[in-house]
């Protein structure tokens, strides 16, 4: 990085209509002769490589990632991304918990969209139990509605957090207001704003609350307004485009090799969305599109996420119309807790309740890998059972672990200031990455 380059910023394409053919281009700095001489001399100065620690105590690093940068001026020569600051031993804890006790743990994996984790884990155990096709249809619809609401919250958080890091604080407030409406709905549904623990093996905990459909429709109108405001604020904004376009490049082939999934992969022009490619639950009942952008950069990832918000809301609206009446949890005393009426009034109900709470759901020995589309990509659970009520192994395949492993390649060759938007655009969630 030379001083001369710092002083003459590139001409913006967006200002092309103000281009003056007689001489200087718009946006170019005029330097006095003495300054020009200074800039030329500065460019010849020898530079030295410096090691800089970015994080973990850095506002843009979420407090959970440390990047050791080897820099020459502003230019990043090499980087070492270090994770693990939020490691809590998720898998070790799971091995001594019953299957139902794991739900609160999975809430805290991706704490921006806990509902999707809930559903992902429940589906893994259901696959192992062989009851995937016996889940009541109403429960599947509720899972889709709750999961897509969580996805909206997840993408909104990623977008407004990274925009605020670029200096667009207004979008942060607008996005927060929109997310607040989503959280109101999820609170209405589950009783908790952040850690819902709402899914159960075999269905969901309870039915939708009264008037949930009307409330959701009304809230989604407001959310759409906020999203439209955010888009108007940033999408033709020169500062935003300069920071996002062409920054954080990763090719499609590299992204696949790194195991990147979700919006980051779709921002590389690869059409891979598990909801479409290997439909699970009732996703094949809905009409929705999978947005693709082929820029392979920050802007492409932003565009994919902002369009997915609309698609998710479309799914929610269709689901609210299509949702059938019926039970919300499987009618199987080996899997689901009996009704409270039976627990208090019959010995069979009491025993069933006691056994399920103390010993847990008895899962036949075997192993299963179940995959769902989480907020950041393929959220997989690999569960190994030894026939008891506790998993022998419960592995979570965290989408952002693999995305973060590609961060080094994305930031080497960029400027220090680009680390923040690149890191924001891959939406690394510490709870999920470090487990």
């Amino acid at each position, binding site marked *: 990085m030379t001083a001369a380059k710092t002083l003459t910023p590139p001409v913006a394409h967006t200002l092309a209509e103000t281009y003056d053919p007689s001489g200087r281009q718009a946006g170019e700095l005029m330097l006095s002769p003495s300054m020009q001489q200074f800039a030329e001399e500065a460019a010849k100065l020898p530079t030295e490589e410096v090691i800089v620690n970015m994080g973990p105590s850095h506002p843009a690093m979420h407090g959970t990632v440390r990047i050791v940068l080897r820099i020459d001026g502003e230019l990043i020569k090499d980087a070492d991304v270090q994770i*693990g600051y939020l*490691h809590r031993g998720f898998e*070790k804890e799971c091995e001594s918990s019953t299957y139902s006790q794991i739900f609160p743990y999975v809430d805290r994996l991706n704490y921006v969209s806990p509902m999707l984790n809930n559903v992902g884990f429940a589906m893994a155990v259901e696959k192992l139990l062989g009851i995937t096709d016996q889940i009541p249809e109403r429960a599947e619809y509720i899972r889709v509605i709750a999961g897509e609401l969580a996805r909206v919250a997840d993408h909104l958080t990623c977008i407004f957090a990274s925009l605020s890091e670029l200096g667009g604080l207004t979008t942060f407030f607008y996005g927060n207001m929109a997310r607040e409406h989503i959280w109101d709905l999820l609170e209405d549904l589950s009783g908790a704003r952040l850690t819902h623990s709402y899914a159960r093996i075999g269905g969901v905990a309870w039915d939708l609350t009264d008037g949930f459909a009307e409330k959701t429709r009304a809230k989604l109108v407001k959310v759409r307004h906020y999203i439209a405001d955010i888009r108007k604020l940033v999408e033709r904004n020169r500062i935003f485009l300069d920071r996002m376009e062409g920054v954080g490049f990763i090719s499609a082939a590299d992204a696949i*090799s790194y*195991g990147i999934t979700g919006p980051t992969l779709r921002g590389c022009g690869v059409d891979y969305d598990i909801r479409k490619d290997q439909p699970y639950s009732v996703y094949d009942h809905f009409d929705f599109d999978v947005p693709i952008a082929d820029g392979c950069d920050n802007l492409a990832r932003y565009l994919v996420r902002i369009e997915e918000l609309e698609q998710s809301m479309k799914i929610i609206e269709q689901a609210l119309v299509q949702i059938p009446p019926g039970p919300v949890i499987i009618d199987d005393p080996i899997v689901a807790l009996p009704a409270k009426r039976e627990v208090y009034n019959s010995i069979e109900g009491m025993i069933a309740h006691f056994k399920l709470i103390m010993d847990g759901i008895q899962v036949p020995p075997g192993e299963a890998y179940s995959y769902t589309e989480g907020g950041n990509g393929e959220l997989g659970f*690999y569960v190994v059972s030894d026939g008891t009520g506790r998993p022998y192994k419960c*592995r979570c395949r965290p989408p952002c*672990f*693999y995305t973060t*492993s590609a961060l080094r390649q994305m930031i080497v060759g960029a400027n220090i200031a680009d680390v923040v938007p690149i890191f924001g655009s891959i939406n690394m969630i510490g709870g999920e990455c470090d487990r």
Partner: protein
Amino acid sequence: MAQRVLDILQQRVPDAIIEAGSYVGDEMALVERDQLLSVLTLLRDDPELDFSMLTDLTVVDWLELSPRFEVIYQLYSVRLKHRVRIKVGVDEARPEVPTATSLWFAAAWAEREAWDLYGVRFTGHPDLRRILMYDEFKGHPLRKDYPQNARQPLIRRPDAPSTDDQTTRLLANSHDRRTE
């Protein structure tokens, strides 16, 4: 659909496949450790298989069984949209498998995690450091003989008992704690 993958494997490398089968819709194959890399290369490069993505890599610790560890590779083909699980047995005396970093970039961090948490070495890995635990950590926490309640704090309180002694004691008693 993925049954075809297993059929192709059985045809091409019959010696390398110890066992192949399917459970609850997941196709899997247990392969010989010596031929692991050639099987993985075949899976990635053959146009009929085309497993372009290493979705996940993990280890299962079977403790009493022999071989003790099983390294699990979850593969996915973005183009053909099929999946397969490859397993390889690793004994406790020589917990080593060849690295897959030359085949998929994803293996770089995944293998670091497997080494960190299970202590399975990936020979030829360019940078096999701990990733989730800190460098001073002793042992491999997800092994079944590592007690769940062992603590190894990095910063010690002067009034607390020496954490090394405590952990050593816990590690020594681990066999009893495991079989509850």
